[in-house]
């Protein structure tokens, strides 16, 4: 195995991860809610689930993050997106992610961070499943096609 030392960012990734954990833990401790982006979007899309304004407040904060980062963080901390996928792949990927996360009832935040932190076996299975096909898909597009 060859390590990509040029792009490897151990400290900022660890720091970013810690912030994700702090936000997830604080949301549950303060509001009693699981920080799962899939669930938050579900509540916003389907009004019957929109039982409280916390989802809108959280999403607004999420949307404000790039602006806040621009003003308060050094530019080298925030990485510019590099997107290899073409438009057709982006659309196909979006549909797969939307359908799949609703079907599996969670994504990287709800199952990955919150679920693993709760020691949920169900979320561990979900996380291993989506990481598994993530590895396979990138292998196929980078080394087979």
């Amino acid at each position, binding site marked *: 195995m060859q390590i990509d030392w040029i792009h490897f960012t151990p400290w900022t990734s660890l720091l970013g991860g810690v912030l994700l954990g702090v936000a997830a833990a604080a949301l549950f401790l303060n509001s009693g809610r699981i920080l799962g982006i899939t669930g938050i979007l579900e509540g916003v899309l389907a009004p019957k689930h929109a039982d409280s304004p916390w989802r809108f407040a959280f999403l607004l904060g999420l949307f404000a993050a790039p602006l806040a980062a621009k003003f308060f963080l050094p530019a080298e901390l925030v990485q510019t997106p590099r997107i290899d*996928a073409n438009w057709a792949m982006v659309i196909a990927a*979006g549909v797969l992610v939307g359908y799949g996360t609703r079907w599996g009832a969670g994504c990287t935040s709800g199952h990955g961070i919150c679920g693993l932190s709760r020691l949920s076996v169900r979320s561990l299975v979900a996380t291993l499943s989506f990481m598994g096909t993530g590895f396979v898909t990138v292998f196929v597009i980078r*080394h087979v096609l």
Partner: protein
Amino acid sequence: MQSVIEFVLGLLFGVGLLISGMTDPGKVQGFLDVAGVWDPSLALVMGGGVMVGLLGFTWAKKKHSSFSGAPLQWPEMTQIDRPLVLGSLMFGTGWGLAGFCPGPALVAMAAGNDKALVFVLAMLAGMVLFDRFKSRDN
């Protein structure tokens, strides 16, 4: 007041995604590409998040309600079933294909990235599509 706290937590989560590299699909695919030149960064994102999360959720297990007074809504589902696995396998395929998962895509969209915007629209369409199929099943 609660909404202000929840706004700040959304902001914190978004900044965490930006700093960690999750909003950069190249970095996500670099992590998923174990057969190529591998970028292990995302393992540290997950490690850092779960490390802090473990402390928070362990603390929450000793509490009867949240600080705001609202009940602690622990997820009730524990079963490992077909929807969980098939849905997650499908999600991972899309994640690998473009390098975006839902949270980072929303943040990259808010940062003005055009491909992230199209990804989010397709993702919302996928979610609506699922709801249609599901309601037909019922």
